[in-house]
Every structure is written in C-alpha cells, then in structure tokens.
C-alpha cells in the first residue's frame, strides 16, 4: 500500500491507503499542519489546498485520487515569501483566531488566479468557507482591494 504525492514541489512516497483523506496525510504523515480540520465533510473549507491550481477540500479528497497532481498547501504558497493575498490579509487585519484563514487564503488565491478582478458576487460564489470569528466583511474588503490592483 503506497501512494506517491507531489506536495509543494516535493515528491513523497507514502505508506498510506488509497482512500486515506489528503488532509490527514498532509497533517499526520508530512507534518504540514497549516491545513486545518474543521468538519470532515467538505462543508467548511478549513482544509482547502490547491490541486493543480484549483481550490479543493482535502478532507474528502482520497490520497489515491491526486497521485499525479501538483498539490500546494499554505506552506507551499508562502515558500517564496508572503503573497499579495497574504499581505492584504495583514493590511486588512483579517484573522482573529486564524484557524480558518489558511483555507480562506488558499480559496481566495485560487479565485484570483483564474479571475484577477472578481466582484463581490464572484467572491461569494467561489469562497464558501466558514469563519466563526466573523471576518467576512474584512475578507470582502481585502478582495475588493486585490481586485482593483490585480
């Protein structure tokens, strides 16, 4: 039983079941704990990573289904220094508890990669992640600013 995954540009051969959830493989096998567990049923988006550049909820993604994919986590996103999205998150002082923000940042980054000038409606449709601290209005303001720059 082994699955080969390419995460943040590094190839790992892992002794895990095909159906092992990508979220827990990232966290427990690879120690990439920036990706969070929130619900386990693809509702909340705390576990959002990029699979070939698309935002995907890793808690319901079987490891075996992303064998040949480029997987990027929040750690990989930040590898070359803070991105424009992360800087905007600081400028707008968005995180409170911060737990959902890895997923938020991954979801917003994927949106901006395919649509550099999203409107409020685009954001609302693309980013359905849950934040219990209630940072949505600041996220909206930050994405408006990024869309204006983009």
């Amino acid at each position: 039983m082994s699955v080969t995954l390419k995460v943040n540009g590094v190839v790992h051969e892992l002794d895990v079941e095909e159906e092992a959830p990508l979220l827990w493989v990232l966290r427990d096998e690879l120690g990439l704990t920036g990706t969070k567990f929130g619900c386990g049923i693809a509702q909340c988006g705390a576990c959002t990573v990029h699979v070939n550049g698309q935002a995907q909820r890793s808690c319901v993604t079987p490891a075996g289904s992303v064998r040949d994919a480029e997987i990027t986590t929040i750690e990989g996103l930040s590898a070359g220094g803070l991105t424009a999205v992360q800087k905007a998150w600081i400028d707008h002082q968005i995180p409170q508890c911060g737990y959902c923000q890895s997923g938020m940042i991954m979801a917003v980054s994927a949106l901006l990669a395919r649509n550099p000038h999203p409107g409020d409606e685009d954001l609302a449709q693309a980013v359905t992640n849950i934040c219990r601290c209630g940072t949505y209005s600041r996220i909206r303001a930050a994405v408006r600013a990024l869309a204006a720059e983009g």
Partner: protein
Amino acid sequence: MPTRRTVILGVGGAAGALVVGYALWPSGRIAAADRLDAAANEKFITNWIKIASDDTITVVVPHCDMGTGTFTALAQFAADELDSDWSKMRAEQAPPDPVFANGAMIEGFALGGRTVPPFLTGLAANTFRFLAANVSIPGAGYVPQITGGSAAVRFTGMNAIRVAAAAARAMLVKAAAARWNVSAGDCETRANRVVHPASGRSLRYGELAAEAAGYDPSSRPPMKDRRHYVHVGKPVRRFDIPRKVNGTTGYGIDVALPGMLYAAIRISPVFGGRLVSIDESLAAAQRGVKHVVKLEDAVVVVADRYWRARDAAASLEPLFDGGANGSVTSETIRRRRADALNGKDVKNDLTRGSGAGALSAGRRVQAAYTVPYLAHSPMEPMNATALYKDGALEVWAGTQDGLGSRDFCARAAGLSLEKVTFHLLPMGGAFGRRLPGQWNYLTYAVRTAMAVPGVPVKLIFTREEDTQHDYYRPNVMSRFEAALGSDGMPVAWVNSYTTDDSANPEAHILYDIPNQSIGAVKVETHVPTGAWRSVEASWHGFFVESFVDELAHHAGKDPLQYRRALLRNSPRHLATLDLAAGKSGWGTPLPKGSGRGVAIVESFGTIVAHVAEVSIDSGGAVRVNRIVSAVDCGLAVNPDGLKAQIEGAILFGLTAALRGEITIDKGAVVQSNFNDYEMLRIADCPGIEVYLREDDGPVGGGGEPGVPPVAPAVANAVFAACGVRVRDLPLRNQSFPASGGATP
C-alpha cells in the same frame, strides 16, 4: 442549597470589602517568575513585565489567544506607562502557574459592583485548592487565568498591566537615580531609557532591569492620564496576525510529539448515558488500531494515525444506555419551561415602584419569546493531547484558563498539581466553549492517556462529536406584560423567564419605567449548558429589545423615538443610540418590503446599538442587507481591533438569529455538522459599519457586547418590513410575506 454562583459570590463579597488596588509582587517573588518564564537575557521587574538586555519589553499575559487581539492591546497599555517605542514591545502568554494567577480578573468582577458571571461559577470546585497559593486577593482563594467575560482589557489591562507597567517604570527610575546619586524626581523616561536632563546622562532599561527588580513595587505608582497616551487609542497591527496568514500558528490540534498516537471518540449520544457493551474486535482488526479504551460513557479508539482511529471508531457499534433521559425531546423541555413559568416557583428578582400591581394602570400588552439551545462550534474542534508517564501527566490543549486546566487535569488523574504540566496553546476559536466547567475533552484525553501509559495520545473530536457534546447556550423562555399610560409610554413592566442557573441581572432593563417586577424560575434539564459569547445578555437582549419595540408599535410611536424617551436620563446610551441611528439614515425611505430595526444593549460594561436593514426575498426568507453599529466602551485601546471584534460579534449573533438551533430528540442532540447546524458564509454577510464613541466613562469589554443587540435589531427590522413579529428564534423557522403587510 446555595447555587454554584452564590458560592463564588461569597468569595467576591469578601474581596469587595478590601481596599481597591491591585496587589503587585514583592521583590522576593520575582525570582520565582524569572525561574518559570525568563530567558537568560530577560528579567522580570514586577508582575507581567519582563525587560530584556536589548530593552525589549515583554508583557506576560495571564490570558490565552483566541483571536480577540488582547495581547496587543495589553502591550499598548504597557508601552504608554513605560514610555516605550512600539517596536520594542512584545507580548506572550503567562505559564499556567499560580505565580501568574490573574488577581485583577476576580477583582474586576468583585469590585465592579456586579455579580460574578456564570462562566466563572465552574470554578467553585477549584476555589479552595488554590487558597494558600495566592496572595493577590486575601480570601478570594483560587485566582484564575481565565479568558472570558470581555475582561482582558477592562480588568487585566486597566487594573493589572497598567499598574504593573507604571510600577516597573518607577523602579527603573529609582535604579538609575541610585546609580547617579540624584533624585528620582529629576529623572524622566523616554524611548526605553531613563534620562537625567540636568546632566544629560541616560541609561537603557536593559542596563537597569536587574537593579530595578530589587525594589519593592508600589501598588499606587504614578500613572499617565489617558489624555497623554501615545499608544493606547491608536490602531496598531496585532502581533499574532503574521503567523496566522502563513499557517505557522500552532494550535492545540497541531501538537506533534515523538511516538504520538491519535484517538477518536464515540460518546453516549444521550448526555450522562453509560456504555453498556462494545464489540472491540470490529475496530481492533483495522489497520493501525492500537487500543480500544472503554470509559464510563464513551469508547475511544487509539491508532497510529488520526483517520484510522476515526474510521475505526465510526465502525464500532457501541451500546449506550441513556436511562430516563433517553425520552427527552425539545418539546418536553419546552412544556416544562412553560409549566414552570405558569407555576408558583417564579422568584422575584427585582421590584421597582409597585411592581406588577401597576399593570392595571394602563393598557396592557403581553408577549412571550423563546430562544433555542446553541452550540459554540469554534472552527477548531475540541482536542487535547496527553502523556501519562512515570506517575506524571503532561497535557497540551487550548483552553480559556491554563492554570485552572492544570488543576482540573490533576484532579481528573488523581495526581497532585506538581505532577502535572499543562501546555496552553492558541485556540481556533472558543466563544465560551473552552471555559472552566466545559472541559469534557480534557477529561477524555486524560483518561485515555492513563489507559495507555507511556505514549502521548492526541484526542480529536469529530465535528459531529463536537456539535453533540457541547455545553449549550440554554434555551430560554421569557414572558412580558406591560401597561401603557395615556401617552403610550410604559408605566409597568413585568417579566418572568426561565433559567438553568439563577436569576440573571441581564434581565434588568436600561429603561426608565416607574413600576417593574422581574423574576426567574429555575428549570434544570439533562442538557449541559454553558457560557456562549455574551452569555445571558444574548437572550435577554433579544427579549427586552423585542418587547420594547412591540410597546412602541402598540403606542403608535417610532421605535427609535420611543427608546430615546425612555433613555432621556441616560446620556451615554442616548448618544450611542443617536450615533447608530444617524449613521444608518434612520427615517429615510427604503424600498417596499424592506425595513429598519434598532436595538440597544449594555453588556460587559459596553453600550452597543445596532440598526439592521432587512428585506424579504420572494421565497419569504429574510435577507439582512446592512448593519450599522455604534459602540461606547469608554476607551478603545486598539480601535481597529475593537471594530474587528464588533464585526465578528455581529456575524456571530446574526448566524444564531437567522439559523442557529440545536434540538433534542431521544435525549440527544439532533444536529451533527455544518450541513445541519448551518453557519453564515461570505454570501450572507451584510454590509457592516462600526462607529466608536468615547467618553471618560468606565472602560468596558470588547469581545462580547456586539452580540446581544443583533437578533432584536433584525427581528424589529423584519416587523418594519412586513408586519410579522418574530418571537421565537431562529428566523429560519418562520416564513414572511414578501411584499409587505401583516399576515393574520
């Protein structure tokens, strides 16, 4: 029998008789703090204040980080009292040791002339254990490190950090003056130095720290007038945010230890039920499963990876016995609450004028309201990691009281406090869920670790277990009757409500009504309840502000003007109300099918008024388009941080008002995850505007007071939009006419 709250109140009463003033450590106690928490180049000067050889000042905070930004705000206080450059300021969490117990918190509640809130009542059992260990408040016994009660700034900041920093500054000045053989009065402090202007000499704080720590601090040091603050009152960037945008903040769930195993749990669905039988072989044969641990009311699967533990736990078929509670439903609880309100056990809590006797003096108006049980559902599910080895216990977890948690784990394990190490970690939200009295996740983690000695075990609740084994915001029923005089204004106000604990001061109203009678009846159920962001104010805010609105409409008056008349002798409330109303454009026309509603609630020492704008969509559902908020907390230490707290509180309150409901069937919680316990998302987020006003009033809290006025502002706006009165939350249970006009 005294309630849990009166036990604490007795303690608070003793403290209340003492001289006001925060007890600072004598110099002899500094050594203990240095041993526990100072690096080689650092020195504690007095409570909470460390200075490093490079002049960096670290505020050691007796709270934990759950996202409210208090570490930064407390550093702002210290920066001002110590005349520090902002770049030299740091903040870190205090170790969970009695040396760092937070006397200012209990003192704040005890001396604030109010009762201790229920979230502190879980401490009662812990109270006497710490009696000998603490000197801050003689007689107060256990002095905690609680994060809650919106207390960090108003109590810890105002009464502890500010005083300790000012005392530290005076000690640094003394040390410099002694070196120079000059009068301390001729020295000044600026930019992390003590200077002697007459001779032009100066010394860095880092050079003086060790000598300064040798002086006994004054509990009444000279302190800055708030008009001279440079840092307090300015929006500053929070210390914790950079690590929260790159995934490097290590929450409780992120702990990684050598050889660590992972655990998943199945708890009796009926609260208080018992595990009757379990076929462990169903799990034991699965890959990675190491142990199946049977507890009195739960079964725990321990495996080498979390998903394996979780899947194996899910495959088990444990048989639980819920006992008599197995037949309880939301409806049976509702009937018990209604019967109790009809019965003779309603105890009067407040009478003003001739109380209910004045009801005959005018036109009578009646209404009854309910709110449901609510789960906290922070984004990080409950979890804790524990290692039991060689008779000692080590625990890693996020909780709202590190010191209390250490004590709690010691007693859960039957060990002395010295045998227990507790690592308090940042929390992915809490909202009251991780307060004392609500630590089932610690209990299960400790018991599991003791069953599997020698290896660290990380227990993580699934979202389903988290939702179904919370300590819920209680469901509450409240009834009102009022009499309106010939001018339409109330002459009598009569209110009775159910409580799971004791009477709630939050039911007492801001409004100037001559005759009042307010009472409560206790109804206990088997559903565990606890503090949920803004606690009692979260329900009484809805009840009171809805009923006042109803009175205004019965009187044929504008709800804003009606409240203004009732608050004519309360200038701060009036000004806050006017600020919200003015910014919202109150009175200007809205499209048909839309409406504005207003509500004002004071809680945790802060006054908040919200104006909500809603419309009813074609499907009869409420859409909240805009919320305008005005806040008076006396002093906004970090105005941007406070605004963020109010914005978040608005969404927390709005989620509950529109969608939040935990129901009970067969003694257990029906909802399980975010698919059936739904949260608002970005698409649902209204436009939010927050306006702050300040005066020289007492300093109030920031984390909670934004919640209570949300539900009534929205419900009142719904009435304005369509003429249908909301008396039971959440709004999703009701359908509203889309085009305006009341339904029968």
